[in-house]
């Protein structure tokens, strides 16, 4: 057995390990015998032991209010299902090199923006109140074929000019809603091709956008003539389309 005499400095250095019981028996004995002889270190040991004991025994704290309503608002947006005109068969012969600037898709995105605005207006009119209403596009079954090419985007239909006009909403809505469903299902298909971290980021951010859409819609429902709020909603919808489009174009990990 090695007879160690601890100095106060060595005591300090060994204190943490001692409290975690990771010192070898010789060192432990040396530390303890030093504490017997040294007032300063004995007091230090006693105080630090007391702190760690108290820390481990600290009670659980209570917030000042019930936090659940704030949580449930963010996770539970009732889903309004929009009619989907049936999935159009994707044209699998369309292959686009994934690094080229997707110009036709930009036009489609603009199309979708106009589309979702009209869709939004309809949804807002038909579902009056409810702060967290998110329009979704019906759960079409994901295509189980692996998607390594993009579906063709049709030539743009006549664009909805401005938000205030009353477009011929019903047939337009069906076409546009199915476009959104198409993008949505592309995104679902892509999941297995992306790493789980990225999928988690995408899903989290889609929810952030959906929440923004829901908040804008709710505000708009109370003040339907606000051009500012229409803009806010459009921006959020644009962001959603942009994100879905980005995901659709991401390269696979293998």
């Amino acid at each position, binding site marked *: 057995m090695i007879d160690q005499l601890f100095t106060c400095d060595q005591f300090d250095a060994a204190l943490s390990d001692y409290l975690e019981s990771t010192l070898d028996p010789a060192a432990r004995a040396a530390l303890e015998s030093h504490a017997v002889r040294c007032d300063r270190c004995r007091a*230090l040991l006693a105080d630090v032991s007391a702190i*760690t004991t108290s820390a481990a025994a600290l009670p659980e704290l209570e917030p000042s209010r019930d936090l659940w309503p704030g949580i449930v608002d963010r996770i539970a947006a009732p889903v309004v299902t929009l009619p989907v005109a049936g999935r159009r068969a994707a044209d699998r012969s369309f292959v686009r090199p994934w690094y080229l600037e997707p110009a036709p898709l930009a036009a489609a995105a603009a199309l979708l923006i106009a589309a979702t605005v009209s869709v939004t207006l309809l949804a807002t009119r038909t579902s009056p109140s409810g702060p967290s209403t998110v329009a979704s596009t019906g759960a079409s079954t994901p295509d189980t074929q692996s998607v390594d090419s993009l579906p063709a985007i049709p030539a743009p239909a006549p664009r909805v000019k401005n938000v205030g006009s009353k477009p011929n909403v019903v047939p337009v809505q069906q076409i546009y809603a199915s476009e959104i469903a198409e993008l949505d299902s592309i995104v679902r298909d892509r999941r297995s091709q992306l790493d789980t971290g990225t999928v988690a980021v995408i899903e989290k951010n889609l929810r952030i956008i959906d929440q923004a859409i829901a908040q804008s819609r709710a505000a708009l429902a109370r003040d339907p003539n606000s051009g500012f709020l229409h803009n806010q909603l459009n921006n959020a919808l644009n962001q959603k389309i942009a994100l879905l489009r980005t995901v659709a174009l991401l390269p696979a990990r293998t």
Partner: protein
Amino acid sequence: MLTATMDVVATIPSEEPPSDVARAAAGDRQAFERVYRANMQRVFSICVRMSGDRARAEELTQDVFVRAWEKLPLFRGESAFSTWLHRLAVNVVLNDRKTQGRERSRAAAGDDDEDTEESYGASAPPSHADRMDLEAAIALLPPGARRVFVLHDVEGYRHEEIAEMLGVTSGGSKAQLHRARLLLREALNR
């Protein structure tokens, strides 16, 4: 995600049965509420003590559970659910920009000194009694030391785990812990 409708449980058990986590992962919001009630205080405590800010901790707690809801389908049971949830909480607090911003401006104002073993000095608030309680003293620790102290002495994580969570070395974690304990001792002995 499926949205199953379940009857609300009349009494909230103190510890949720494992199946509530599975149900919540499948989209059962009532099950998730039970999971929330059973774990909320612990998560809130971690958030308060690691961030040093009660008000912010309430928002962070909500963030933690929202994120837990989103990530629940990815939880595969490799660890106990509470372990998974607490790690998530630690991550949320560490990544919180507002807390970091406040800590940076506190540091800039000279309340924090990472390099020397400083005492609390002027940053210690006048106490209701002549002695500060442990909870208050923890809140006043410099951020790095506070996080390590809370994770190690309050929550019981090992230095290797803390090192991984905070992106520091084990040795760094031990040094911060030692520093935290000395600072707390000084504050409590005043």
